[in-house]
């Protein structure tokens, strides 16, 4: 008879509810990637041990109600103003971990000035920028990130670049600013991508904890509801169409950030 290995039969937690998330259902549509990204943020806050000193700033869009889901202090900003609000919080509470979570309508359109200047100031905050190429909450209108030719409710014949211009690549744009310490674009379209995204979020918060400057993680995501696709098709569509326009990878890694990344 074989000896029983030590620990055999004990229950091992392979997948737990992060302490930084509340045990509630979300309002997100089936197949939405907000749930994945918010869980990744919560896992990172848990792992860094900063839940009790974190202040989140929610934005306007599908993620507006995210403060119901996170078990950390939260403010909710006017449309596009989360980086300004986060700046106000951080400047008077420099020992706190402050992050914003914004969609592409919120950050790349109405709030692009606040995002650019927070980055330029090297504001010690972390921004999660979720890019799904449409306005989700208002029902799928064209965003600054909408792809050329992409059909939305406000570009019914497809985005015509002659009248509606071209997509804005936020990760590349902010990478030009000296105050930005870490800017990266990731995608939660498959398991390896989700793992890489979590790693990037960890680096971004690490940059803030080291007071090394502004950090932003752009996350390519989907909107099955407004894209009128199944969750699986939406993931494939994003891989085929969004990644060529929005290439994945780090666009800015400052020397201090690189040192931090090598340290870990």
């Amino acid at each position, binding site marked *: 008879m074989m000896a029983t290995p030590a620990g055999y039969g004990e229950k091992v937690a392979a997948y737990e509810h992060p302490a930084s998330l509340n045990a509630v259902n979300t309002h997100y549509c089936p197949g939405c990637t907000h749930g994945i990204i918010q869980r990744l943020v919560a896992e990172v806050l848990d792992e860094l041990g900063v839940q009790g000193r974190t202040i989140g700033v929610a934005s306007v869009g599908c993620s507006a109600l995210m403060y119901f889901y996170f*078990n950390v202090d*939260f*403010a909710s900003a*006017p449309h596009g*103003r989360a980086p*300004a609000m986060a700046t*106000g919080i951080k400047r008077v509470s420099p020992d*706190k971990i402050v992050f914003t979570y914004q969609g592409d309508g919120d950050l790349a359109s109405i709030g692009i000035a606040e995002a650019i200047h927070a980055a330029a100031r090297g504001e010690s905050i972390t921004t999660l920028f979720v890019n799904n190429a449409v306005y989700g909450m208002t029902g799928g209108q064209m965003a600054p990130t909408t792809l050329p030719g992409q059909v939305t409710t406000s570009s019914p014949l497809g985005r015509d670049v002659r009248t509606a211009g071209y997509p804005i690549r936020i990760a590349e744009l902010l990478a030009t600013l000296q105050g930005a310490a870490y800017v990266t674009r990731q995608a939660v379209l498959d398991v390896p991508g989700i793992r890489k995204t979590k790693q990037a979020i960890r680096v971004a918060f690490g940059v803030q904890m080291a007071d090394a400057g502004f950090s932003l993680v752009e996350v390519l995501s989907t909107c099955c509801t407004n894209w009128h696709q199944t969750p699986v098709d939406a993931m494939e569509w994003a891989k085929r169409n969004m990644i060529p326009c929005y290439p994945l990878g780090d666009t800015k890694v400052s020397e201090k950030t690189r040192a931090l990344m090598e340290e870990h």
Partner: protein
Amino acid sequence: MVRELLEGNAAIAEAAIRAGVDAFFGYPITPQTEVLEHFSRRLPEEGRVFLQAESEIAAINMVYGAACAGARVMTSSSSPGISLMQEGLSYIAASCVPAVVVNVMRGGPGLGNVQPAQGDYFQTVRSAGHGDFHPIVLAPASVQEAIDYVGLAFDLADKYRTVVVVLADGALGQMMEPAELPPFRRTRDPGSRPDWALTGADNRPRRVITSLYLGSDNLERHNLRLQAKLEEIAAHEVRWKSYDVADAELLLVAFGTMGRICQTVIRVMRRRGIAVGLVRPITLWPFPTAVLRHYSAQVQGMLVAELNAGQMAEDVRLAVEGRCSVCSYGRMGGSIPLPDEIVQQLEIFAADIACDSPGKEMMP
């Protein structure tokens, strides 16, 4: 303490520092830029936060954030900049966090000019942003009052957790006159922020500050709470100053710089043997409605003098409800009348009343 020769804008900033302001966020705009400049030098000296924002929109949202974190915080601007801040004012009032905003008014509408004006009365008193709310509005008429009301503004903002606007104008911001600064108050220790502030959910339930209330019942309940607070403010915080009102037959009603000019006017009128008094509202919201209603039974008429087209005149008419004649006299575009001009208008008004004709608009 000593009286010093102080410029209005710098005095406003220094008064805030003495009142214990933790942080200032602002954007340059004439005629109040000296407020920002004074803070830019003095706040770092005091180890406090100064930040020049990229726009008034960003500035007010930085104020909103710092207020949510429980800091004593303010911004200052002038008319066009306040227009941009209105979004934030609505959110701050809705979220019940304290903030102080100084508006050193200039001529409008549009880019207007940089001369003194009072054209933002409606914007500030009636409609400081979308939705049902009023900020508390304090109207100084001298550098000393500007200093005093900045201190008062922080106390009222903290007490009622709302927006308090100090509504000055370019004349007050730019003039120098003797005034006395108050002693330094202690700043708030970051470890002892208010028990509603966002400080991190360390060994306590998390806190959320939002202005989003989905569901009509939910939002109406919130609105009723806000209205109850406004009623409490209206019951306790009405402030005004009155001059020579005991035997007045005619009443001047004016605020801020115009109120100060009218203090000279009543002396001139008294010398001419006409019993004119002055009520100078200090709080434009809550408005001294009951005071004016009281005098409406005593005087034959009220002349409302303003550096605008007759905005506060509407609140005076609402207060007196037709019990006496109300006449509006306004100058715009940065034109400031000499006392003689108001004297002349009062004489015309008195003659009109004597002829038993109803009060009419008298514009130059």
